[in-house]
């Protein structure tokens, strides 16, 4: 888990798209062995399928942004998810690249949160399966899954009076034994997580006293303490003001850069998604409309198709990524 991958980020020019919009990603290499469980004593040996693409290792693929057929961290096959008899997602195939930041965007009720929950095994699938490497997620024990996949859901409850350090250390749960004894390793991980999210000096404060931005960082620290290769986040920037949104996304980008963690997040803000994601997935009505490099995916046509929004897409003056500018109805002189 210590592979540091200084990947080249943010190429100024529009890179060549790796995937044509509308096609699901099926890399020519076999599934990469990114389903690696951290070297624990009692963890089962990773079932690494041989691949000719990414090398099996600590789960961090080399930061080569141009090579086609990167390893796939997570894959859905024919996934069907619904609520109370109403099917939201019907037969979706999606591959999420390992070691990258993927953002899933789409209009309200397009099923992006549902999809994330289905992948994270927080919501039961009515059909299909989710594969981690070549293992069916449903076949893994929850504990095992929790050591590989960290999730920050939308709904979080901070119990009354809990302190920051205590809350973050709950993230160590999947790694602890029957009696929940905290080892020095656990403490070290927790401390690192606190430092990484910049809340170390708040460690003894009650979570309830923190601001929204700080609190969200604490929750992320908890997920970090889980030490997983993959982190899923369901709308992590809701209720945060724009400065904190950018702050949080920068943090996730650093995490991806330094540890090679695969980040998959559902985001509402198109422009931030375009800016921070390596891989953008646009959904509408339970299906994937387009996916790939933001530059290729976020075109005016696709924005219109998926969101029903008439917009211009221009290069962001700071990062060069697509900036969606809505046209709206009121014309100004």
């Amino acid at each position, binding site marked *: 888990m210590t592979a540091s991958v200084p990947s080249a980020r943010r190429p100024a020019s529009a890179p060549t798209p790796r995937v044509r919009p509308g096609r699901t990603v099926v890399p020519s290499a076999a599934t990469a062995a990114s389903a690696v469980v951290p070297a624990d004593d009692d963890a089962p040996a990773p079932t690494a399928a041989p691949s000719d693409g990414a090398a099996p290792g600590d789960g961090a693929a080399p930061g080569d942004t141009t090579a086609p057929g990167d390893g796939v961290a997570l894959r859905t096959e024919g996934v069907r998810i619904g609520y109370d008899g109403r099917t939201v997602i019907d037969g979706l195939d999606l591959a999420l690249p390992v070691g990258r930041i993927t953002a899933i965007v789409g209009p309200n009720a397009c099923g992006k949160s549902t999809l994330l929950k289905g992948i994270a095994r927080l919501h039961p699938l009515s059909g299909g399966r989710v594969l981690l490497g070549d293992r069916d997620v449903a076949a893994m024990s929850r504990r095992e899954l929790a050591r590989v996949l960290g999730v920050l859901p939308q*709904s979080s*409850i901070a119990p009354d009076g809990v302190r920051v350090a205590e809350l973050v250390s709950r993230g160590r749960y999947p790694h602890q034994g029957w009696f929940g004894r905290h080892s020095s390793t656990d403490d070290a991980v927790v401390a690192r997580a606190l430092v990484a999210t910049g809340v170390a000096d708040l460690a003894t404060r009650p979570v309830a006293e923190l601001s929204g931005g700080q609190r969200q960082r604490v929750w992320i620290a908890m997920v970090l303490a889980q030490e997983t290769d993959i982190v899923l986040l369901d709308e992590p920037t809701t209720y945060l003001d724009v400065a904190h949104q950018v702050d949080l996304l920068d943090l996730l980008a650093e995490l991806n850069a330094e540890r090679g963690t695969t980040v998959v997040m559902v985001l509402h803000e198109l422009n931030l998604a375009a800016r921070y994601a390596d891989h953008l997935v646009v959904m509408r009505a339970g299906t994937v409309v387009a996916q790939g490099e933001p530059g290729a995916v976020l075109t005016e046509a696709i924005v219109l198709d998926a969101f*029903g929004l008439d917009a211009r897409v221009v290069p962001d003056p700071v990062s060069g990524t697509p900036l969606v500018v809505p046209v709206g*109805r009121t014309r100004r002189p």
Partner: protein
Amino acid sequence: MLTSPSAATADAAAIGAPAVDALVAGRRTRFLLVLGGCAVLLGLVVVASLVLGVRTIAPGQVWAALVPGAAGHDPAHADQAVVLQLRVPRTVLGLLAGTALGCVGTVIQGITRNPIADPGLLGITPGASLAVVAAVSFLGVTTPRGFVWFAFAGAALAALVVFAIGRAQPVRLALVGAALTAIITPLIALLLLRDVQAFDRYRFWAVGSLAARDLSIVGALWPFLVVGVLLTVALARRLTLLAMGDDVAASLGQDLRVTRALAAAAIVTLAGVATAFAGPIALVGLVVPHAARRLVGTDYRLLTPVAALLGPVILLGADVIGRLIVPGAELEAGVVAAFVGAPVLVAVARGRAIAST
């Protein structure tokens, strides 16, 4: 895609107006049908209440007993005596208490926007009970007519405590009410343990029964019932708006303090009257508004009359069932009502889209 405002208005005029008219007309017809149906149902239940029981009395005898001028009218006749002295008072009490319960349930659910609100569930009726017990054991009050006023006071105090602490949030209210009941029960027990006679008098009342009452209470209390029903009617429009939220209702011009004051008065009056007439009966106030809502929708102007009719239907129905279900004996209306109300509560709890946290 949204169209421009001017285009939208034109569209609305073309399509909208006849559709709305049809909707309103349809609803009105449906309402009248439902109202008529409920009235018929009520009539049937009343007849059943007079005819059925441990002994089934022939309708002819019932008629003869009720109508002084009818042939065969003879108050001394056994059957007719039963009708006049037992069944009629019972039916009348059931009608009045049922109406009160139907109305109070509607108001409580409206003012708290809470589907499980009910005066018994919220600790209001136990509050009335405690007051009654206190009156019976400390002040030696023996007749229902006497402790009726205590029932009022108890209901008022309990309502105050519950709504102040519960702050009109659904589950919180239920729990505060249940907690209040949990406080009151040992207090009642303490008082009753000291005094066997008080216990003896109280325990029959505590079951919630329409039997063995004299109609003098009706004479004393009917004005309160009328006031309560009038308040409910007056609240109808307000509650309909309130259902959309405090802020929305206020922005539509409603004075929330007036609404709350009226509602408080209605709740206290009606709960007090119902408890005075029939003892503490739980869950009828819960079931009636739900049934009414299923029939006529959520407009309180339509809900209120239907609830006022359904209340007695359910209460009297429970009473009749109680007479028939155990051969040779009777099960009080309150007990039967609890068994009828509980499944409804469960159905409501299961049916709701409840967040998974």
